[in-house]
């Protein structure tokens, strides 16, 4: 356990607050137990550290350039304070004002929440990752600038805090050291939500100061709105790619599989996270096979944004979120479909399935893939031979689908039926642990952020996966399937498996839910899941 004390006010002091030391992290089970045999933690070059943000922990997720002059620093400070004030107004915060104010005003400082945070725990209780550390900074700012109390009282009651470049840059970085998994919020007896507080902090930086990781903003939402997809696929490319997938799959399964485009009046408008199409083509292919087999009329949209369910706005900016969600809903309306089905993507499901309701009224009905798959498996007369899934399977619960939306049982009912060697992780369901790639981290790898998300934010999940399979032969002989019905989580789990060499050492593989379902279909003669190709 760490002994150094980091004070809230240290955030305004120059320099790092802490340094990552691999020896201090909670040890992993064998054969990953000796940190010397694992990849190291990249230390950033001195020049980088001197030119960029004051990092809280020697890690950079984004890295701001240092202000060139006093005036520039002043400008940033003023923007930060005006953004802070706006965050607490109705006109500027139409999504989360009420829970934010409640979270500001009612924390009893009991610290119950801290032990629920996988990042704080796995880091060996590093103070800067404590859920209440970030929250307390915003709280002090709130009582200083938004709801000022008498300065003397404030010093006594809430503690004072100084806004300067050091605070801004460190706090910006710190707002990207929490995956917004909201596990801490579940444990708070009062309902204070430290995950939400981090989210709202990110909003100050993005909306008012124009600061956001380029993976989420410039290459993410901005590119999606202009080109059509955060992956850079324009409509022509996406159609070309789906055509390739259709041909490839038809060849493999021995019957014709065909993606439907822009079919008016279809029952289902299927919107995948477009990353699936590029990186995990078996997932959209399996959806096509399953929907056809169930006799459901379905379509994809080839309109800009309509073929990419990604909505990174959820992670950092309400305006970007609304722009993208609006496109999705408009397209569905235009196509006159009965409902939108969100593919296997957690944040898409939450953004479009839940948060959109806070912004738009009377929108087209939406459903997660989990419930649709459950319905298809049990009610549509498709024949399954579960013994085809003859390998051990565990389920990763994407936070956005389980904790945030309460969709827990459908995917489990399916797995208990079609995967005889299914076993749960501990804990799971609403108590699950984040994969460590939540809130956009899975696509952020700049500077040494990959090391951070492999060694620290993803550590608990990696440990859980290993433990789920501990009754199986440990090595590579038995392939073990981590079912992660979310593109973002899959990216993180892939990176974890690569980073720790876990395919070779432990036989770990990963994929979605729908692939397992199709693999169990009697009509699929050959294997649909082929470990040699993974």
């Amino acid at each position, binding site marked *: 356990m760490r002994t150094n004390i980091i004070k809230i006010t240290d955030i305004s002091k120059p320099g790092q607050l802490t340094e990552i030391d691999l020896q201090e992290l909670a040890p992993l089970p064998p054969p990953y137990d000796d940190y010397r045999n694992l990849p190291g933690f990249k230390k950033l070059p001195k020049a980088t550290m001197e030119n960029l943000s004051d990092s809280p922990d020697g890690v950079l997720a984004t890295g701001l350039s240092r202000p060139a002059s006093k005036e520039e620093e002043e400008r940033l400070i003023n923007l930060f304070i005006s953004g802070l004030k706006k965050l607490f107004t109705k006109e500027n915060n139409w999504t989360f004002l009420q829970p934010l104010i409640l979270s500001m005003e009612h924390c009893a400082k009991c610290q119950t929440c801290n032990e629920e945070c996988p990042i704080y725990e796995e880091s060996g209780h590093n103070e800067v990752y404590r859920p209440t550390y970030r929250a307390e900074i915003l709280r002090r700012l709130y009582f200083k600038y938004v709801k000022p109390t008498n300065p003397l009282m404030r010093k006594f009651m809430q503690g004072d805090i100084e806004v300067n470049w050091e605070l801004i840059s460190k706090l910006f970085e710190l707002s990207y050291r929490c995956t917004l998994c909201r596990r801490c919020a579940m444990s708070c007896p009062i309902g204070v939500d430290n995950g939400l507080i981090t989210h709202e902090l990110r909003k100050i930086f993005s909306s008012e100061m124009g600061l956001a990781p380029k993976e989420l903003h410039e290459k993410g939402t901005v590119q999606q709105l202009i080109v059509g997809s955060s992956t850079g696929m324009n409509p022509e490319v996406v159609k*070309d790619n789906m055509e390739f997938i259709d041909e490839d799959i038809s060849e493999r399964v021995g019957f014709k599989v065909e993606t439907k485009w822009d079919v008016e009046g279809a029952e289902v408008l299927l919107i995948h996270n477009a*990353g699936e199409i590029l990186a995990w083509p078996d997932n959209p292919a399996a959806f096509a096979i399953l929907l056809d087999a169930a006799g459901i009329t379905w379509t994809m949209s080839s309109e800009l944004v309509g073929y990419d369910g990604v909505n990174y706005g959820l992670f950092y900016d309400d305006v970007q979120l609304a722009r993208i969600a609006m496109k999705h809903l408009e397209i569905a309306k235009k196509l006159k479909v009965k409902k939108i089905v969100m593919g296997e993507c957690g944040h898409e499901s939450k953004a479009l399935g839940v948060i959109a309701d806070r912004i738009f009224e009377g929108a087209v009905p939406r459903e997660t893939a989990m419930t649709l798959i459950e319905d298809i498996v049990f009610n549509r007369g498709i024949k399954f031979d579960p013994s085809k899934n003859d390998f051990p399977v565990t389920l990763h619960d994407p936070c956005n689908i389980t904790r945030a939306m309460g969709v827990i049982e459908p995917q489990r009912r399916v797995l208990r039926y079609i995967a005889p060697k299914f076993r749960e992780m501990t804990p799971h369901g609403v108590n699950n642990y984040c994969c460590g790639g939540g809130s956009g981290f899975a*696509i952020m790898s700049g500077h040494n952020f990959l090391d951070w998300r492999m060694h620290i934010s993803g550590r608990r999940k990696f440990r859980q996966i290993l433990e789920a399979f501990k009754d199986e032969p440990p090595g590579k002989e038995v392939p073990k399937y981590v079912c992660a019905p979310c*593109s973002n989580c899959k990216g993180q789990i892939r990176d974890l498996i690569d980073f720790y060499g876990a395919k070779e050492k432990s036989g770990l593989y990963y994929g979605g839910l729908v692939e397992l379902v199709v693999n169990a279909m009697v009509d699929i003669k050959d294997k649909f899941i082929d470990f040699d190709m993974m």
Partner: protein
Amino acid sequence: MPVFEYGDVKINVDEDGFMENPEEWNEKVALALASTEDVYELTDEHWHVINYLRDYYQKYGIAPMIRKLCKETGFSLKKIYELFPSGPAKGACKVAGLAKPTGCV
């Protein structure tokens, strides 16, 4: 912005080592970037992959699907890893001078 130097090649790269200005790419740059993969000689097989990637990139502005890359070059994924140890995206695309892949891929 980090600068990558190798022999007489000097280019701007991003934090992951991908080219910032893909239009500056040439064969010498490819060889220089390959050194980050511990590859010091580019064989015909390497070029086969690089040329396919570049053609596709010039036509569509993004990297091809990995499965497409395998099918069109006739190389298995394993083979691509042998040629470019960090794999198709982080290895081959980087050497071919493509921009870093974006989105949930």
